[in-house]
């Protein structure tokens, strides 16, 4: 009795993952080692062509690097925004807490595609943001800082990172709010009674106890950001493409399915490695328990 029931509970989820995720992914392995018979046909022959991996790493390595850099910067930026926001919601939200959480989630209810397109008018050369920068005469400084590129925002790396940050913000805020909510207010009072200044309370009490939320937030935001396709397409320029754009182009435009498969597997491997490192650093139990 005891032996089988955990498996019964796991079965639906496992079947789902194996059937719709793992098997298709494994199917990419032989494809990535094959060669197409003709340019426009569907047939491929298995040739054990490992060199495809070398080729895609050599050709698209810089784009892989760029993707993870963008994702990292966007996540860091997201954290800077999310942490104070989560603290404010948790400790100062009061009865408005549900509403505030709702407001954090609200933008995600719009399709991310529509959001990216809306951003193109916000960030455009004649859009309100550039208008504001011009009115405040900030353009030279922002150009020097590399935030603006020749006075432009749209179709620059900055715009891509801003778009990514917007997308991942709720995934950082929500786990953080949950983690912070587990902190007993009495702990903070106790620390204050012992004459700890606010900064020490934060560093010694709030920060360590919120780290599980942080770990799951990072897991939920960094990895999807690295595989984003929409933001670089609409907000970036040709020098800001990310790896998912390359895979799409290889598959749908250049009709090079084996190379697309190889690059997908490389991306999956890197992402899995990242997740494993994060989990190892944080420990699985730390995702949920303070």
């Amino acid at each position, binding site marked *: 009795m005891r032996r089988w029931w955990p498996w019964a509970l796991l079965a639906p989820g496992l079947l789902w993952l194996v059937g719709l995720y793992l098997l298709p992914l494994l199917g990419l392995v032989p494809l990535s080692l094959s060669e197409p018979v003709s340019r426009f046909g*569907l047939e491929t022959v298995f040739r054990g062509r490992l060199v495809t991996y070398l080729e895609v790493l050599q050709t698209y390595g810089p784009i892989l690097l760029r993707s993870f850099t963008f994702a990292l910067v966007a996540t860091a930026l997201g954290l800077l925004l999310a942490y104070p926001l989560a603290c404010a919601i948790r400790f100062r939200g009061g009865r408005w807490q549900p509403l505030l959480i709702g407001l954090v989630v609200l933008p995600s209810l719009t399709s991310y*595609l*529509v959001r990216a397109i809306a951003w193109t008018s916000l960030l455009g*050369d004649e*859009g309100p943001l550039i208008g504001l920068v011009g009115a405040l005469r900030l353009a030279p400084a922002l150009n020097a800082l590399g935030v603006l590129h*020749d006075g432009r925002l749209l179709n620059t790396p900055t715009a891509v990172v801003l778009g990514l940050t917007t997308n991942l913000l709720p995934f950082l805020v929500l786990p953080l709010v949950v983690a912070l909510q587990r902190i007993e207010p009495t702990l903070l009072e106790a620390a204050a009674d012992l004459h700890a200044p606010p900064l020490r309370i934060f560093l010694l009490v709030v920060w360590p106890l919120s780290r599980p939320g942080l770990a799951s937030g990072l897991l939920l935001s960094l990895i999807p950001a690295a595989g984003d396709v929409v933001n670089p*397409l609409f907000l970036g*320029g040709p*020098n800001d493409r990310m790896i998912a754009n390359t895979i799409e182009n290889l598959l749908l*435009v250049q009709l090079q399915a084996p190379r697309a498969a190889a690059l997908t597997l490389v991306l999956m491997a890197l992402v899995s490695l990242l997740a494993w490192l994060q989990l190892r650093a944080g420990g699985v139990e730390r995702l949920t328990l303070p």
Partner: protein
Amino acid sequence: MTRTAGPGAGGGRRRFLRRLGLAAAGALVAPPLLQACVGQGGGSGGGTALTISTFPLYIDPDEPGAPGSVARFRKETGIQLRYLEDISDARQFFARLQPQLAAGRPVAQDLMVLPSWLAVRLIALGWLEPLPLAQVPNARNLIPSLRNPVWDSQGRWSLPWQSGIAGIVYNVRATGRELDSVDDLFDPALKGRVSALLEMRDTMGLLMLADGKDIRTPSWEAAQPSFERLERARRDGQIRRFTGNDYQNDLLAGNLAACIGWSGDVAQLALEQPDLRFLVPQSGGVLWADLMLMPKGARHREEAARWLNWVYQPQEAARIAAAVQYISPVNGVQEILAQDSATAKLARSPLMFPDAAMRQRLHSFGPLSEAEEARWEERFARITEG
């Protein structure tokens, strides 16, 4: 022909929003979804009797009190026409249909409008049906220069939908001066405010012509300087984007000062933005043709023939030409437009009816072998995709 059929006055904002939506949908979401919905199950289900896939904004639209060609065709023939504006990038459209056509299974489309270079590929692959030309008497209205063209020398597989010119589009207020050559696109003063087309033959054709190269028989070696020039401009940030139809949004939004674009688009856009100009450089413009093709196994040959015959009536072709302002393939359109004071100006446009001087400057991009094309496309993608 009593109304101008121009999509202009009053509709500007709506059309702009619609374009934005189409650009998004065309790029990512709609085609797979549409394909999933109509890809199987046969055409007769749901009352659909004729399915056409084409590029957006490529026919006269419905206007208040004046139904467009699609609506009038439906009404006059009683044929349930499903008119899908779901092609934004011909290469991606090919990739969508490839699994079914390569496996010998029919697709949902009975007709599709695609560039001539893709028609050459589809003919060679045997993925097309010959058009039911016996049932299209109006095909005799085809202008002589488009009979037995290089892409379809027997004239069995295709009828042209429209032709057009790839050239330079610019906003004279943004550039601050008139442009007169391809070199102007590489002017440092326009850095980051220039775009080029993802349609390789148009962008490369224009650059190679500026280099004094022959594009009727394009060679890999002759293309290298143009590839390098394009790559450098992309790397330096001179070129802001590579686009399909969506360069129009950027022009109207003020993000672009100049770009490589298509003649008819500009004629339409100039109604909203009078500072726009279209330039066919002295070095030459690229003449292209989009063709109506029937995929293998199409189920509605007769209905398709009715459509082909309908759009090849000079009166109907004139309506479409007045709206899209490309080069109509139908004889007599110029005379019809000239008779109406509202469209008489169009009848004199050398972009719609190229005169001898203009014809001298127009060149078609010649065929590439399969192996050559793969090499060209890979090189081009390395430039456009970073």
